[in-house]
């Protein structure tokens, strides 16, 4: 049963009429009883407000006049005279008529009533009639609506100072900034100068203010409307910025009133870095220069698509070797910085510590920028397959449609390069073994043309690449037979299909019926798997017999440097990729004792299997008194790793292990620590596998 609010209102209105009538009748005896006046007022107030909401406009309009009268009574401007009460009672009957439709707004009687009411009501305060009101500033489209699009884009400079209690009263400045972003590209500079030391810090007080440079096609009013609720209490300035995109920093500072023209000229005379000179000279606080620089950058930023000017300065070609060299230098810098951090850790020198932290931040940014430079859209790789698919389909007499998605997904260029061969192999496989010949497809009720779909997408710190075909799918029975033949499984074992499918990655495993000219040339899925694993990725295959096969590669975004968590296990230090770490918990002695022989932990009601890395690594030292459990995850699977100590964050420059350690599966690489020591990087997916297997064993036994 759906409830129509209008029906609810009708019922409610009947109650309100009763209340109103009762109050009015009592008022005849007790005209000074404010309680009665209040009741009458509220009844009329609700009739007006709710009536207008549910389409009873005439009733709302009429109630408004009566409400205005009783508001005056409430405030002592008007007396609850018998005349007024009589008038109100008559008006109430009219309202009732308006509700059930037996009366209309232009009844002569109603007009007479209104006139009399107008006579009674003191003309001191004029109230606007209720027809027009709307939520101020919130147009029918609401904020972010598509209204008023298409004007000329203008650049505005905003200074946004909210009241200090804005947070406490429920205003979220971030949402306001987000709303500004909805209006157009924004550069936001936060001013943190007023943030006090920690001891004096009140979390519910707002210490920040913002400068925003906004490019928008919307009128100024739309910008103001963002701040509608706080407009009266805040300090907001909105100024247009001339669109000239190559303004000098000094000009911007003068325009912003941060410094005088003379000051700029004085500094200019001394050249070359005006911002630095002004700061050093004490003419301008650094935050001001930073803000001006951000504005300059915003104005210089390439215009949105379509307006981009064809200049030759937007990109330059750099040889890949130089990028690699740059990455190596950054890697060395990160390692040196780790050493510096460790040296400084033992000092009490505050300025030294501050500089070290600054350097750490800068290096982290440099690292991110450098890695960003190395990112290449996967489109460059996908586009190579058009030709391959075209040639293959001719050679094999199959009709193939290649589709791609997520070409914009970016990956480290090294990863892209090394992905080429595995992808070629898998696309060949899909067409050669996966897709059936056209007549076979028709016989199976499928379209003649087979489909191969290549897709790429982001998933957290990983990129997923999948190759999907709508061919015959994997033959589970055939794979089972081959697996038995290879001694991978016992002849009578019942292995689920999903696990069988993964066996195609085993070395030397091939189920192709015959060796064609295309596939089966010794490069098997095991090579694919090895290549992907050398990129710290994983590969999985899924298939529906007769319908499709999907091979999914999961790859890390970059190979070079990751954020890691450094832990100690016995005498060794190890790094866990921070992206895989969910949380760290204490291994309480009770949990420790309870878990003996069970190897799973209760994490908020979930049973999580865990590995004691000390035992797993056969560490010679005794366990620390308070061991920690680091919960790591890979997809849905989780495992707890028991370590002796969690040392902390570590920017990890990944060094691959040599072929001499190709057989060691627990580690995906190594890194150099601040003290020059070497820490191994744990291979989380492998450890999770082991944890899960042990969990299985536990369940079985």
């Amino acid at each position, binding site marked *: 049963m759906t409830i129509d609010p209008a029906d609810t209102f009708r019922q409610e209105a009947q109650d309100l009429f009763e209340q109103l009538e009762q109050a009015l009748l009592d008022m005849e005896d007790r005209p000074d009883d404010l309680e009665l006046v209040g009741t009458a007022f509220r009844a009329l107030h609700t009739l007006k407000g709710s009536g207008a909401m549910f389409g009873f406009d005439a009733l709302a309009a009429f109630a408004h006049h009566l409400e205005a009268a009783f508001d005056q009574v409430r405030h002592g401007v008007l007396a609850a005279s018998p005349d007024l009460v009589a008038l109100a009672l008559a008006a109430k009957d009219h309202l009732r008529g308006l509700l059930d439709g037996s009366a209309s707004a232009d009844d002569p009687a109603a007009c007479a009533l209104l006139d009399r009411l107008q006579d009674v009501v003191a003309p001191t305060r004029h109230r606007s009639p209720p027809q027009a009101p709307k939520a101020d500033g919130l147009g029918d489209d609401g904020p972010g609506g598509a209204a008023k699009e298409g004007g000329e884009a203008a650049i505005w400079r905003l200074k946004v100072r909210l009241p200090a209690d804005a947070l406490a009263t429920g205003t979220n400045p971030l949402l306001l900034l987000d709303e500004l972003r909805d209006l157009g590209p924004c550069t936001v500079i936060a001013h943190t100068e007023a943030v006090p030391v920690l001891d004096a810090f009140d979390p519910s007080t707002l210490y920040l203010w913002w400068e925003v440079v906004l490019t928008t096609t919307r009128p100024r009013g739309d910008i103001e409307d963002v701040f509608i609720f706080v407009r009266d209490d805040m300090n907001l300035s909105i100024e247009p910025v001339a669109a000239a995109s190559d303004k000098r920093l000094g000009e911007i500072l003068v325009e912003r009133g941060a410094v005088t023209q003379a000051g700029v000229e004085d500094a200019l005379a001394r050249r070359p870095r005006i911002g630095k000179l002004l700061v050093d000279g004490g003419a301008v606080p650094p935050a001001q220069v930073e803000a001006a620089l951000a504005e300059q950058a915003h104005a210089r930023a390439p215009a949105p698509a379509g307006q981009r000017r064809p200049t030759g300065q937007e990109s330059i070609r750099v040889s890949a070797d130089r990028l690699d060299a740059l990455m190596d230098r950054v890697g060395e810098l990160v390692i040196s910085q780790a050493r510096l951090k460790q040296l400084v850790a033992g000092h009490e020198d505050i300025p030294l510590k501050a500089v070290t932290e600054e350097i750490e931040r800068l290096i982290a940014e440099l690292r991110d920028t450098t890695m960003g430079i190395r990112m290449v859209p996967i489109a460059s790789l996908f586009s190579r397959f058009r030709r391959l698919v075209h040639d293959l389909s001719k050679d094999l007499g199959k009709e193939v449609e290649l589709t791609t998605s997520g070409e914009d997904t970016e990956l480290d260029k090294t990863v892209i390069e090394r992905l080429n061969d595995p992808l070629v192999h898998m696309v060949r496989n899909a067409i050669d073994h996966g897709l059936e010949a056209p007549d076979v497809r028709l016989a199976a009720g499928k379209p003649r043309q087979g489909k191969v779909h290549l897709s790429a997408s982001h998933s957290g710190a990983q990129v997923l690449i999948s190759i999907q075909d709508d061919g015959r799918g994997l033959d589970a029975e055939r794979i089972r037979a081959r697996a038995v033949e290879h001694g991978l499984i016992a002849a009578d074992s019942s292995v689920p299909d999903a696990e069988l499918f993964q066996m195609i990655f085993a070395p030397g495993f091939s189920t192709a019926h015959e060796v064609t000219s295309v596939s089966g040339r010794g490069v098997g899925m095991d090579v694919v798997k090895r290549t992907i694993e050398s990129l710290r990725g994983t590969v999985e295959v899924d298939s529906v017999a007769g319908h499709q096969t999907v091979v999914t590669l999961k790859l890390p975004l970059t190979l070079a440097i990751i954020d890691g968590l450094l832990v100690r296990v016995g005498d060794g230090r190890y790094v866990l990729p921070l992206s895989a770490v969910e949380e760290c918990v204490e291994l309480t002695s009770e949990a420790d004792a309870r878990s003996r022989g069970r190897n799973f932990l209760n994490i908020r009601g979930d049973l999580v299997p865990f590995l004691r890395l000390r035992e797993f690594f056969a560490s010679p030292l005794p366990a620390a008194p308070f061991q920690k459990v680091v919960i790591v995850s890979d997809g849905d699977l989780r495992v707890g790793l028991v370590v002796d100590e969690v040392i902390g964050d570590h920017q990890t420059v990944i060094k691959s292990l*040599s072929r*001499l350690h190709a057989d060691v599966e627990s580690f995906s690489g190594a890194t150099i620590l601040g003290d020059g020591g070497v820490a191994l990087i744990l291979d989380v997916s492998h450890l999770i596998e082991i944890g899960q297997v042990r969990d299985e064993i536990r369940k079985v036994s």
Partner: protein
Amino acid sequence: MSQWMGNRTLEVVTLGLDGEVFAIDAILVHEILEMVPITRVPGARSFVGSLLNVRGKVVPLADPRVRLGMECRPPTIDSRILVIEVELEGEPTIVGLLADKVFEVTEVAAAALEETPRLGMRWPPHLIRCVGKRGDDFIIVLEIGRLFDNADLFGAPETAAPQLLSA
């Protein structure tokens, strides 16, 4: 084994392993380090059971005593690490080679294996490049390439393989 014959000499680095003197081709040796902190690699074969930092590179550390069937005592003040370059599956790779002692860089003259039945018998012949003669002493020059031959290594029975501890 012995491809250089006659009077030709070979420049070698001589080193001590379990009280015996061996040599390796000096051209392979990049540098010689005193003992530095090393990192154990749990689960790795004991021949290459650890890693070390050599000028910002992570380098595996090999203990030739394992391959030669010698007793592996802990490092002493005399222990050294020879940083050498070997070819692994066609890729030049920097590795560290642990020695109980490093004596000198010297030249040795070739000697025929037949002259040294005692030495020839004691060590796996495929690990011996040749026998060098220095004065009256014979020195075994190790065949470093074979020492690191992965096929060889993975084929070898291994006692220190990682075991899943039973739950």
